[in-house]
């Protein structure tokens, strides 16, 4: 079966793609929604335009649909993007990296149901610490590209998801209920390298925006 991947460039959608490929599915395309709304509950926003470089190094076509990002239009825009993938690549299903959000998953399920295609959520209900450990084990090079929850601060920007990060995020989960994988939007991530990439992306610089416990790192790639 040919699949389209709902792709944000972060760890969850990239790892979901990796699992689909490992199970023998053909990845036909990546599907990204560029939201103008930085508060979107549905779509990852920091560095979303960098998915073009990620798609290139994965040697996969990328479908991009822009959305103003209000609650209802973003669903219509997502449906539009999936329809393009259906028409252009004849996909039999889509894959999302949703872990725990019924808000996100039920909206994606409804679109797939309407279009009569399969909806795959290979990270659904996954233990979030286990997910982080699997990323390391499977050689995913992931950095933090945004934070938006106390007590996370600017010092987290650019940090690599490694053993030390996992130890720290477990402590923050115990004390402040921070979701270890950032599923509650506590942090955003960006994949620099992984087994799906032909070569590692080179970070050439960055600009940080924000204050207190809400920061975004705009990454510049070579």
């Amino acid at each position: 079966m040919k699949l389209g991947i709902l792709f944000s460039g972060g760890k969850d959608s990239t790892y979901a793609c990796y699992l689909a490929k490992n199970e023998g599915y053909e990845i036909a395309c990546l599907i990204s929604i560029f939201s103008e709304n930085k508060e979107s509950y549905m779509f990852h926003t920091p560095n979303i335009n960098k998915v073009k470089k990620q798609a290139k190094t994965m040697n996969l076509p990328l479908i991009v649909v822009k959305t103003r990002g209000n609650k209802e239009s973003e669903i219509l825009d997502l449906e539009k993007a999936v329809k393009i993938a259906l028409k252009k690549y004849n996909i039999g299903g889509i894959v999302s990296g949703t872990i725990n959000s019924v808000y996100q998953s039920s909206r994606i399920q409804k679109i797939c149901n309407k279009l009569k295609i399969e909806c795959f959520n290979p990270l659904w209900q996954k233990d979030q610490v286990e997910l982080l450990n699997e990323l390391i084990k499977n050689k995913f090079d992931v950095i933090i590209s945004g934070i938006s929850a106390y007590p996370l601060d600017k010092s987290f920007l650019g940090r690599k998801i490694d053993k030390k990060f996992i130890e720290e995020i477990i402590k923050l989960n115990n004390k402040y209920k921070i979701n270890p994988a950032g599923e509650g939007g506590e942090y955003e991530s960006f994949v620099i390298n992984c087994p799906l990439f032909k070569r590692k992306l080179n970070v050439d610089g960055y600009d940080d925006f924000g204050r207190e416990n809400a920061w975004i790192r705009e990454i510049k790639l070579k």
Partner: protein
Amino acid sequence: MKKILIVNICKEKLHYYEFVKPIEEILRINGFNYFIRNYEDIKNNDLRKCSKIIICGTSLFDNYFIKDIKTFKWLLGFEKPVLGICGGMQIIGLIFGGKLKKKKEIGFYNENFIKNFLGFFGEKEVYHLHNYYVGFNNMTDFEVFSESKVSQAVKHKSKNIYGVLFHPEVRNVEVIINFVK
């Protein structure tokens, strides 16, 4: 130690992660032994060596089990506890003579449980993901534990065969733990 048999009814390999692995993790974390079989591969020896069975759900379109429903005939003579989740509940209903009906429900819904069902009682928020259900209200062999027209939780009157239309692995894990313990 006896093991719990987890039955995978998904044909698509990638659905294992969404519909079987969460159940597997609940059992593992809570210290229960288990083994997994695809529904087509269940042998008499698997039924003999297990202590209980959980039949997992599947996606909205991965419904090959309906075509293969005869594969589940073993349920009619099976005397150990069984819990069917969503598609698993539909299998139980079809094997015991029920009819499949259309009803799309996706996401969180509030359901009222009028009798205690594996620790579930009163109004609860449950996660639904189905296009079909089996109407148990007219099936005399089964007791219905929920208020709505679409049966949410049922138990066979003389066997320990349970069915839930919702997915307890999403936010209502205690239903699964109360079944296996």
